[in-house]
Structures are given as C-alpha cells and as structure tokens.
C-alpha cells in the first residue's frame, strides 16, 4: 500500500512544455506543472481553457504534440503510444461522469483498477479475480469509507458514493498520482465536501499527489493546497491557495482576450 513518502526533490508528477493542438487550434501552449507527493492542487479555468485536455494528455488518453510528462522522474509513454505503460499506471484518473460499470458490485468495480497488472487468465471475468486482489480492493473501499457497501451494485449507490468507489478503483490501481476531472461537478454540496475531503486526506495523510479540476474557486480555496489557473493555453496562476488574490481568479473567468489573445 502507498505510504507517505514526501519527496521534495522530484515532483511526483512533472509536466514540461506540454503542447496540444486540435485542428490548428492551440489548446495547450507549453504548460509546466509540478504536483508533489502530499499536495492537492486545484486546476481552475474557464470552459474550454484546456483543463481536461491537460489531464488527458498526462494520463495518456490524448497524445501531446510536444512536451514531457514525468512520473517520479520517469518519462511516461504519453507521447509514444496510446496505452499507458507500467510507469504511467502510477497515475490514475477519476471523471465527472464517474464511468463505473453500474450493474457490477462496488468491489468488482474497484478490482478493475488492477486489470493492468493481471494476466488475462485471472481477469477475464470478475469470478477469476485472485483472492488477494479482492482483499486489497476491500482495503481500498475501506479507505474511502465504503467497505460496508462492497457487495452492492454501483447503480444503487448515490452519486457521491459512486465517485468514492471510482477513487477506490484508482487506489486499487496502486496509483500515487491521482488526477480528477471535475470530480464533484455532478454532486450535491454534502457529497462534494465528502469527496474533496477524501482527496485531501489521500494527499496529506497518505502522500498521494492529487490534481483536481474544479469549477468553483471557493472550493479550491477551501480544499486545495495550491491553485493553478489555465487561460489562453498557459498557466496564469500557480500559487499556494491562500496567496491567490480574488482578482486573479476573476480574470480567469472574465471574457475578453486572454494573454494569448484567444477568446472563447
């Protein structure tokens, strides 16, 4: 299991010069971002500013045009191929729309986080999952506070509980870098607090490096250690949560030309 090993020399996730262009439109224009073990970084930015694209490039769902993505100092297969290699399995992602298999139990969904390290003969169906994996998955569910719901079909859980199952799946992947794309955008205030508290605990108490895209600056201030702001393809804010002036956050969402002159 992951233990807190605060590493101050190399960031757990280190992005350098990340560029991504869609059909001639530059979405990311050289992003530099470090996320250290033990910190929760909130990624803010207006709609279409490239937050999801940045995360998808890191996790290997999009192929960046240029730049490097390093996990613990090791280059990932992000640029070379679509399928994340062993190194990039150290990073996991949770999504706004959760993307669990609704008809399967919470436990089976969490076990799926381990698919990347299981041979096919132990993973063709959930019936073949090894016992140790099921135990590890139970431990992951316990870390998100849902061990008592392990046998229940995911469709029967509330949105907030489902998002925590998705986090448990990421933990079962044994990831120590956790990316979250609007993890609370579909949740009510109580569930939002629960999920963001959980991300905070995973970062500060368990030493994960967590980057979460949020849409509410207030939540970022309350839960995050650091805030980064995306605008016009670049990072215009990168500071401890307490040091970011309100005006800077307002600028992030104001219409009108950004630094690169791009308008939505």
């Amino acid at each position: 299991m992951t233990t807190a090993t605060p590493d101050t020399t190399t960031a757990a996730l280190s992005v350098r010069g990340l560029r991504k262009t869609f059909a001639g439109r530059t979405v990311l224009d050289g992003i530099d971002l470090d996320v250290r073990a033990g910190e929760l970084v909130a990624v803010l930015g207006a709609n279409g500013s490239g937050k999801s694209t940045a995360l998808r490039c890191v996790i290997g769902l999009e192929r960046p045009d240029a730049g490097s993505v390093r996990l613990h100092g090791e280059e990932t297969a992000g640029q070379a191929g679509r399928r994340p290699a062993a190194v990039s399995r150290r990073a996991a992602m949770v999504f706004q729309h959760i993307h669990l298999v609704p008809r399967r139990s919470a436990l089976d969904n969490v076990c799926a986080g381990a698919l990347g390290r299981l041979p096919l003969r132990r993973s063709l169906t959930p019936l073949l999952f090894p016992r140790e994996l099921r135990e590890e998955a139970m431990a992951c569910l316990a870390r998100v506070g849902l061990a008592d719901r392990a046998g229940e079909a995911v469709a029967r859980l509330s949105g907030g509980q489902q998002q925590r199952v998705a986090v448990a799946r990421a933990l079962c992947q044994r990831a120590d870098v956790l990316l979250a794309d609007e993890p609370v955008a579909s949740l009510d205030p109580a569930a939002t607090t629960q999920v963001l508290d959980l991300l905070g605990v995973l970062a500060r108490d368990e030493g994960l490096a967590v980057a979460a895209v949020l849409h509410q600056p207030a939540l970022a201030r309350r839960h995050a250690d650091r805030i980064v702001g995306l605008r016009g393809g670049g990072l215009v804010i990168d500071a401890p949560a307490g040091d970011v002036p309100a005006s800077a956050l307002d600028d992030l969402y104001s219409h009108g030309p950004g630094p690169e002159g791009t308008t939505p």
Partner: protein
Amino acid sequence: MTAPPLAAAPPRLRRPSVLAALTVVIVGAAHVLAWRGADVSPAALAEGWEGMRDFLGEAVPPDLSWSTVVRPGLDAALVTLYIGLLGTTLSVPFALVLAVLGARTTTPNAFVQQAARSVLSFLRAVPDVVFALIFVTAVGLGPFAGVLALVFHNTGVMGKLWSEAMEETDPGVREALRTNGASGVQVTSHAVLPAVLPQLAGLLLYRLDVNVRSSLVLGLVGAGGIGFLINQSIRLFRFDEMLTYILIVLALVIAVDQLSSAVRRRIGR
C-alpha cells in the same frame, strides 16, 4: 392585444423544388413498372374467388381427429420449436465472436473488423431457406438440416445486431478502464460486455421468436417440423388437416411471441 411579430412568419407552403417534383415522378414510374412486372391483376383475383371459396369450404371444419392429425401435429410443432431453439442457441458462440471482432469499440484492427463484418453480411444475405436446401442435400431430409440452416443465418443476423449494440456503449467506461491499464480484451470483458448484456439477451429472445417462425418455413422445404406436415397435406389436398396444423402453428407462434416479449420487458427494466 398581441404584440406585432418581429418578422413575418414563413409561408405555409414552400414552392416545390425541381428535385421534389423529380422524386415524385421517379417513384411514380417505379410503381407503374412494378405493377406490370409483378402481373398484378385484380381481375384474376375476382375470378379466382371461386377457387378460394372451394378451398375454404374443404378446410372448414378442421380435421380434429386426435391420433391421426392433432397428436402428430402437436409432436411436429414441438420439433419446430426445438429447431428454432437449437438454431438460436447454437449460433450464440459464433455470433458473439463475430460481433466482438466486427465492432469498432472492441476490435481496433480495421482488417479484422472488416473481415468479420463480411462474414456476417454473407451469412445474413443468404436466406435460411437456401441454407436449408443446401443442408438437406448434405444431411438429408429432417430437422437437423433446419437447425444447421438457422445456425448459419441467425449467426449473421444476431451477430450484426449484437455488434451494433456493442458499438453504442458508453466510451467513458472504456476510457476509464484503459487508464487503469486494461488491455483491449479486458476492456471488452469488463466494460463493453457487462454494459450490453441485457440488450444482447433481449435481441436473443427476439431472434428466438423469429427463428421459431422461420423453422416453420424450413419445414416446407423438407427440414422437418410442422411445416413439413403442412406441405404434405397441401400436396394430398387434405385442406381440413392443413387448417388444424395452421391453428396449431398459430398457437405456437403466439405463445413464443408472448413469452419472449414478457421476458424482454423484465430484462428491460
């Protein structure tokens, strides 16, 4: 009282375009040609009415003698049901493999995908009756030829339907598992199949319904079941016997249809 509209409403009817007029002319001409080509003749129907009445007169009342007609009819209807059941069930593994290989979401290799789709198209294009005629020459008259015919044709149809269901699955779950490091086969078995399973089962039941009805027609070409008996009684001009068989068929088809749609409704919920 009402505020003046900001802009005039568009006219109720737009002037018909040349294209629309041309379409009407072409479709009309096609129907004239079809009418002639198919020898449609209301006069022949009117003249033939006599023959129809004689035919019905001989058919009604149906011959309900138990040991010579009803019992053999029920036995044969059961065989028809068996042909439909086995024809459907035995095609499941083939349909599943070809559906997975042919779906964009489960098979990234375009060549494999195209090959699987071609096999499915071929099996779908050859009618089950043609398959039945082929297999009757191979394994002789009887229900087994009917089973084989259904397996081949149903693999084509059901494989295509299943493949389409797999292509419509949520890309999000697939992506999520891929970020977990899952391989293509793992994504298929943990994201695609669990999501489509109820749909596959529904389509399977629908096909069972269709296949029981087709196995009737297969009987007409010698592939066993009650269709075979119907064919015989027509050739012997025993129309009262035939009517009994048709009533039995009616009951069978309605029963299977009701059962299959009841189960499908349950799955759908």
